[in-house]
């Protein structure tokens, strides 16, 4: 269970589909239908070109650990030490997250280690995309 004091995202019309997807346990990304380029965070057009010829699709949930810090001090909703991580999704985009089911140490958190999605409920409306070391 996540600490309810964790900062809670407030969805906007442009991101609501993402949070609805997470509620179902699906990580949704967007891509440019002309070029196949995948982007994140959500917006109803392709950054850099402005094209609205886009589609929403379900990501594999596979990622690698790209970088992180391990916070040594407490923060609202968090007990130290905890890692604030950036993962690179198999589809390309990167996102901030936390790594669960794993010691929060430099020895256990090895860059480029394979990860898998763990949709984790924050409350009735928000499910966060957390990650854990991939099994197998």
């Amino acid at each position, binding site marked *: 269970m996540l600490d309810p004091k*964790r*900062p*809670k*995202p*407030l*969805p*906007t019309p442009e*991101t609501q589909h993402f949070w609805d997807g997470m509620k179902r346990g699906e990580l949704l990304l967007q891509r440019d239908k002309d070029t196949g380029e995948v982007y*994140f*965070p959500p917006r109803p057009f392709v950054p850099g070109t402005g094209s609205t010829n886009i589609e929403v699709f379900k990501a594999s949930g596979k990622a690698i650990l*790209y*970088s*992180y*810090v*391990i*916070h*040594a*001090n407490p*923060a*609202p*909703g*968090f007990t130290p*030490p*905890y890692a*604030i*991580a*950036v993962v690179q999704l198999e589809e390309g985009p*990167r*996102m*901030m*997250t*936390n790594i669960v089911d794993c010691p929060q140490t*430099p020895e256990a958190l090895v*860059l*480029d280690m394979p990860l898998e999605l763990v949709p984790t409920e*924050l409350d009735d409306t*928000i499910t*966060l995309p957390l990650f854990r070391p991939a099994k197998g």
Partner: protein
Amino acid sequence: MLKPREIAIVGAAETTGLGKIPGMSNIQLHADSALNALKDCGLKVSDIDGIACAGESPTNLAHYLGIVPKYVDGTGVGGCSFMIHVRHAAAAISAGLCTTVLITHGESGSSRIGLNRPAPNPASLAGQFELPYGPFGPPTMFTIPVLRYMKERGLTHEQLANVSVVQREWAAMNPRARFRDPITVEDVLNSRMIAYPFRILQCCLVTDGGGALILTSAERAKDFPTKPVYILGTGESVETPMISQMKDFTSSAAFRVAGPTAMKAAGISHADVDHLMIYDAFAHLPIYGLEDLGFCKPGEAGAFIEARNTAPGGKLPMNTNGGGLSYTHTGMYGMFALQESVRQMRGTAPAQVKGAKVSVCHGVGGMFAASGTIVFTNEA
């Protein structure tokens, strides 16, 4: 197009006190800097017809000083806002929008008296896609790309620690610097952990203070009591408000626009640079700055600093006031980097680089979110 040496800095000063200033609110720190800069160059408040500031709205500043200006710039993109203010002010004076611009910074970063710091917005993209994972202030965000940099570029923990060690050497020569006692790499690596791999001695200070600059045309600058410091070149850019969305974790896209744009406009090569300021909120920033501005090849800046090139006596004196790591850091440090460049060009810095003619001053805003670069010279 703004020409090199067309505009000069004629007034420059910091707040009377620095560090802990419990007797002044945020806006008064702006005013204290402004009044000191006016006194520095012999102007009155009524001589100012353009203003720029960050951390307070320019409306607050204009009202507080009692000015109704013809030119206003409230660009607020973090600590490099002041470099960008200098750039815009120079263009505005050149275009005839105004004649004399006052740029101020004041921040009650430590005492937090009357500080304007808006609460995080949970509906912003950062509020939705970063804050739920526990970043809590710059030490846990600005530092996130560094482990990636270390893996890809081979930077060691010792080299990262050494950035703080060298800057403390400069601070030791500066009576106004907050921390002046020598430190070793071991001291840094044994200091309190903040956010692995960053320890307290690799993170900037949190202080009260401010600074102000006054710009006018080079033509008018000749009539001032101060030695004019000419603007040779300028650059600015922004990339992303989210550290997780920085395109390349080993290099800042905003740095790569602002720095080279300023150097090109100045018409200088790296060998022409006598003095360098690279905003150092954290120990990795000088490393990214040296590489993105082309002073070092990718992956070489850690060793470049370790070889004492930027230390006292080195060929590229950098962060000669002691930097955000040892001199002062109110929250938006860029103004203090500019002040040190001006002092070096005037020949009045506590750790003066003898014969320095060209100074490059490079700022960062947010967490690699924004950038501004100014190239100065004291040669007309």
